[in-house]
């Protein structure tokens, strides 16, 4: 029985989500759509720092200090812990206090005293993660925004694989595929131009995931200098002299997203980080010169 390409979309985690599926006649699109959207909603409700009833909000309020967390949260926190160490402490999910002093809607830099105060509430080690429980100190707050969207993409892709379905999941530009499409050897995935609408490059994705970070999503420009929303936990500022956009291909979206985010945060050391990680990547510097380990 031949399969047809079907698509559906919804909004989740602050952005659009699109799913493209090769479905056979007997596959029920509505049922699959519900299952996938339910999974994204579940993760959003669990890990949103804006919803007071979420597990993450309970953790941030200290209500779950020294209480054993569930296996999924333990897995994510262990992953964060590993990222924190391996990235030289650049990947830190406790930088939420910086977002309260940076306002990317007005072209003003934050007050240095406010910034200094915010930095005191940053530091993954202040979470006291022991592999099973947290004990938040120093009024620190955890923000899993840097990984939950990518994890959601992987979860949806995993659900597709478990059903034996061929599909592509795109959650605000973070993409994973369950396997190559029926009619071509790979999915064509466009990479967002960092300075204007449209694509700057295109890559083939037969398996795995691609995720990107860039200074074009939220930023302000002051005296010709662009300050983007990717803030370093040590300085409270975005990294100077770094890439303006990085896209990484990996076996899963979580890995791709983390490696690309850290490449942005590392500034001028971002290129060395990408080379060290040995994952396929495409990156552009401020002059839009391309650095790539693959053909695009």
């Amino acid at each position, binding site marked *: 029985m031949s399969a047809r390409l079907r698509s559906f979309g919804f909004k989740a985690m602050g952005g659009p989500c699109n799913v493209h599926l090769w479905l056979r006649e007997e596959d029920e699109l509505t049922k699959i759509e519900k299952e996938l959207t339910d999974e994204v909603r579940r993760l959003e409700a669990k890990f949103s720092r804006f919803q007071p009833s979420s597990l993450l909000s309970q953790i941030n309020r200290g209500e779950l200090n020294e209480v054993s967390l*569930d*296996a*999924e949260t*333990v*897995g*994510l926190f*262990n*992953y964060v812990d*590993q*990222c924190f160490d*391996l990235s030289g402490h650049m990947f830190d999910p406790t930088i939420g206090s910086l977002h309260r002093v940076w306002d990317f809607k007005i072209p003003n830099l934050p007050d240095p005293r406010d910034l200094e105060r915010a930095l005191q509430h940053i530091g993954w080690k202040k979470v006291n993660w022991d*592999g*099973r429980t947290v004990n938040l100190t120093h009024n620190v707050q955890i923000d899993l925004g840097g990984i939950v969207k990518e*994890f959601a993409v*992987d*979860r949806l892709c*995993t659900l597709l*694989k*478990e059903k*034996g379905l061929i599909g592509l999941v795109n959650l605000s530009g973070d993409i994973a595929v369950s396997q190559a499409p029926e009619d071509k050897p790979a999915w064509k995935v466009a990479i967002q131009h960092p300075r204007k609408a449209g694509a700057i490059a295109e890559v083939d994705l037969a398996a795995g995931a691609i995720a990107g970070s860039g200074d074009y999503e939220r930023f302000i420009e002051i005296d010709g200098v662009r300050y983007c929303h990717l803030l370093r936990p040590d300085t409270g500022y975005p990294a100077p002299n770094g890439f303006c956009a990085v896209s990484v291909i*990996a*076996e*899963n979206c*979580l*890995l791709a997203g*983390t*490696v690309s985010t850290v490449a942005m945060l590392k500034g001028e050391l971002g290129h060395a980080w990408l080379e*060290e*990680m*040995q*994952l396929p990547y495409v990156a552009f510097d401020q002059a839009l010169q391309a650095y790539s380990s693959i053909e695009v």
Partner: protein
Amino acid sequence: MSKKLTLLAKSALAIPGMIATAQAAGPAGSEASYRYTYYTEDDSPEARDDSGGAQDRYKIQVHQFHILTPVTDKFAVNVEASYESMSGASPVYSYIADGQEDVYTHFNGASRERRYDVSANGRYYGSTSDAGAGVYASMERDYFALNGSLDGSIQINDQMTTLSGGVSAGHDWLNPNSGVVSDSGDVLMVNDLSSEELEQLAADAPARHAAKGKTKWQLSVFEGVGQIIDMNTVVQGSVSFTYKTGYLSDPYRDCVGSDAPLADNVPCDIRPSTRAAGTLSLGVRRYLPTLNAAVHGDYRLFVDNWDVMSHTLDLDYYQNWAPNWNFFVNNDVNFQLVPGVRYYQQSQAYFYEIPDLNTTTGSAYSADTTRYYSSDPRLSHYGAISLKTRLKIDFRQFSLNGSVERYAANPAYGFNFDDDTPGLPAYWRFTTGLDFRF
């Protein structure tokens, strides 16, 4: 793959829900492997070998072949075969000679044997469970064993806990080497002897004669549980129970020479016809991310109704090393070095005793061994220490393996400072092999 990427990828895949369970279950590809093992025991102790000199003890060469192949994404078949060739002298009885205080052991002459083993099992992989069934056959000239097994496991508690269990049953047929040489020069098996020859055998080697046409049964059950404590720590525990019935004596244990004083009081080897044994195993695996290493610790308690109780402690350190060599191409070579130590200690079976043939005592035994008796050193109170090192080198779809082990057994290692057991072995074991994934 760089070390950092390896660590990060492992952490990502450890998050529950990251891997499609149906996909992750079965083996993704096929694997074939070959292993060669050379096992060599130290010579018999010259001072305690009653032949008056040191003899070559067992030397064994083993060739093992293994193939694992998925038939579907949920079903895989595993087949193993091995061929062993053995030669060397082995201890057949121990005693304290008249006028002596030390224990002497009599070793039989060098023998040559071959063994063929084959096993096959199929395993079905569900999303959070698996179940397997297997058969095993082992054949020597004097022995044929057939075994069947069923086992399964299920993951619960967000796949943090694994429960496993199984049952196996086996039947062995014995046909000992009679030691009688035919006119054509072949050594005859007990079942091939004429009635006259059997009569003579009953007088010369009663243990071999007693084993004629004998069989034994074995039934085992086990239950296990594995628990992931955190991403770096797994603990395991299991219990098993084994029941054996049939001819459990060793047909090759000989009697003390009939010309020795008190020899008439010493039977060859008569063990109970049933043996019930239970084991408790506990283990912990701790991954050390900063060292890219792991520590495995295991303890095993064995108790049976022959009064044998043993404790085994294993400690292995797994050091991984991915040097990320890049010469002309990306040479993705990974090394794993596993040094380890094993300590073993057991109490003696209630019917184990070394006969004291000093005529001044009037009796070879201090305990009643009229029903059951053995001087087999494997049933004595002793301890053993084993030092081992294994190296595994992964390159593309190949894995090269090598290992060396030094084992020594001694009553003193088991905190038994009163007895002397010269028949206990000490050996070297060398293994090398190649795995190929395709």
